[in-house]
């Protein structure tokens, strides 16, 4: 068996752009769920909107900062539209509304009626919107090898996207760390623990929840941009399963912690890659085909999610006293 190659591939997942994008999305979800207790099951919808906003406006000729603004604006509007009616209702109503809204975004995005705008179910090709991001790169074209890892400097799955994505992840972690220690963050935690108590202190619970929903959604939309930069915007790869992976990542690492989402994302993708690569080497094709090994990986994810929620809802880094998922 080719252990060095397997270990290289698995270790490569630790800092892959996808891992960063999922970590960022989980950080956004952490603002919703970990800090405020909002059950957002439509994080993939925020990401997809961010991706569409960025890609479509770039194709329309916007510079990169304007395209990013469009992505952020899309998710802000989405959060407001979702939040205004539902934040006054019970928690599981927000869950159903967000999951339905994310599906609506996906179904409308993949509809043939919008082929000119979104490319329907085949989506938008990566080269059509990558230019502005790659032009920002300070590196020369070509490839660089660092230890066992070789990637191109700028194109697609590059060092440049890795650096940019992880810098943003670190910034988001810093932001959450600051927020958790700020008076604003303490109010959010209060809402998570006991909404009525906070309300009786004269705080506008609704406004705080809305701010949290928008902030987490904006982080989600940036995650969506980083998710699609090394590939293409494909609505069907950003549906409900994606939201569920983000939840698994958050609960695995530990909700209401600063590094939980990052640790969760790294573990999630390395373990999946480990199952996939080792499975391909060890299990003969007659017992499990390569596709089945991949599906086996997702089965492991599903079972992990169930066991985590039942036996260790605080995840790896969390504090059980701080996070009881059911507060209402």
């Amino acid at each position, binding site marked *: 068996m080719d252990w060095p190659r397997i270990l290289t591939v698995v270790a490569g997942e630790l800092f892959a752009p996808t891992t960063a994008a999922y970590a960022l999305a989980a950080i956004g979800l952490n603002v919703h769920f970990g800090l405020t207790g909002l059950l957002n099951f439509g994080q993939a919808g925020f990401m997809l909107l961010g991706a569409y906003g960025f890609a479509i406006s770039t194709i329309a000729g916007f510079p990169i900062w304007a395209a990013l603004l469009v992505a952020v604006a899309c998710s802000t509007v989405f959060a407001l539209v979702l939040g205004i009616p539902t934040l006054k209702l019970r928690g599981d109503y927000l869950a159903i509304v967000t999951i339905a*809204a994310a599906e609506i975004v996906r179904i409308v995005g993949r509809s043939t009626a919008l082929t000119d705008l979104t490319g329907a179910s085949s989506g938008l090709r990566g080269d059509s919107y990558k230019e502005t991001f790659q032009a920002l790169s300070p590196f020369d074209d070509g490839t660089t090898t660092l230890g066992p890892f070789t990637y*191109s400097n700028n194109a697609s799955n590059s060092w440049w996207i890795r650096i940019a994505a992880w810098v943003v992840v670190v910034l988001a972690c810093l932001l959450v760390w600051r927020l958790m220690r700020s008076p604003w963050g303490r109010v959010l935690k209060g809402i998570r623990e006991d909404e009525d108590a906070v309300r009786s202190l004269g705080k506008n619970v609704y406004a705080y929840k809305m701010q949290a929903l928008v902030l987490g959604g904006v982080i989600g939309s940036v995650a969506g941009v980083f998710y699609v930069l090394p590939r293409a915007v494909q609505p069907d790869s950003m549906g409900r399963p994606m939201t569920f992976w983000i939840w698994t990542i958050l609960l695995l690492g530990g909700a209401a912690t600063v590094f939980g989402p990052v640790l969760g994302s790294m573990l999630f993708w390395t373990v*999946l890659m480990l199952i996939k690569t080792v499975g391909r080497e060890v299990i003969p094709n007659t017992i499990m085909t*390569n596709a089945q090994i991949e599906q086996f990986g997702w089965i492991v994810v599903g079972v992990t999610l169930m066991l985590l929620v*039942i036996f260790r809802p605080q995840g790896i880094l969390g504090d059980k006293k701080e996070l009881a998922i*059911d507060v209402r």
Partner: protein
Amino acid sequence: MGLLLMTLLTLVIGASPASAATEVCQPDPQTACLGGTIRTSAGEPAVGVELDVAGPEQVAAVTGDDGRWSARLTAAGDYVVTLDESTLPAGETLRDPAANPRTVSVVLGSSAGALFPLGQPTAGGGGGGTDGEGDDGATAPPATGGEGGGEPGLDTAPAGSSAGGGFSWSRLAQQASAGIVFGTLLALASVGLSLIFGTTGLSNFAHGEMVTLGGIAAYVFARTADLPLLVAGALAVVVGAAAGWAQDAGIWKPLRRKRVGLTQQLIVTIGLAITLQYVFQFFFGGSSLRIVVANPPTVRLGPVLITQQSLISLAIALVVLGAVSYFLLGTRVGRATRAVSDNPALAAASGIGVDRIIRLVWTVGGALAALGGVLMGLYLNATAWNMGATILLLMFAAVTLGGLGTAFGALVGSLVIGLVVELSNLVIPSDMRYAGALVILILVLLLRPQGILGRAERIG
């Protein structure tokens, strides 16, 4: 309409779930994959069909034992894919001869698909394949095409439901009848969801998988074990009931006893849904499974063309729903069920065995969902690993619209949702029709969260 189908068929460039028996081609930054799956009109893989891919490079491809072909390309650009019709299995023809040869543009680092559906060359019939729910990770999975991989019902118009624009009274009647059939089948599946929510307060996101289980069990009994359809359907319902019973006994009762909160349980149902979906995919692959191979005969009722199967399904569904209503209204156990649904604590205090009732609700709910799955699989012409997941939100919409926790609300809500889904075809493109139902779901939650038949109470 033919044009619409054409567009649907051509627009299948991209990633979709992997179900290959052989690892054919993995796109990476230097290579691109062009591929698809060719199935006979009966849904079996077409083996040994030769294709020629010409463009910046020239590659020949042959379909394997799983009907799958792929071409590995290292240059981007437009490729002309030509299918050699003389290599098709005996008696098979291209459904759309005009689409051969076809031009596909290929981008490095991604998978593109070119589909050649087989069957009678008609303008109507089922739609083509579509990209499935991507289980996309760091690597783009190889493309699946053909009839497989798609979400059943999302793009594939079921028999009796016509896609495309234009309004006429006969189309209205056609769509309305399709809506009533779809709504009734949806009702079967959602009654259990509503009762489970009523008695335990749990939003069961794994209910869709019970529907899928019914469809897949019917497929196994009817196709693998070769039993008559009625027997297969009945056995599938038994399997569903057993699965419902086992789920409550194995997971939900221990969790209730452990006093695990409802939100936690909700996330557990999501974990269960993921697990079951991929277990189905593990054993049955990512493509559509046809419970019945033959195309069902149709009947003309006034302006409406409907399949015999749909009529029989409708009759079965109505009888079963009648029986459920009688059970809830006319029997002691049914009254106890409604009492638990109304107020579990009070019901327990009046001497009703709440746990026994909940077990019963899970069992009956599982059986009804399985029956719904069997009939839905027949109605949509095929079942697949994600059939239940696709209609899960429609079930939630129906149940919420009718009033969460009320069994009759689920009936009314399902009919409304069924009609909305099919009638919205008249005004919006058919691939957006599920979105209409979801918009209703959101509007109901905003305007009348207790639903049509629910009791107004303070929520939140």
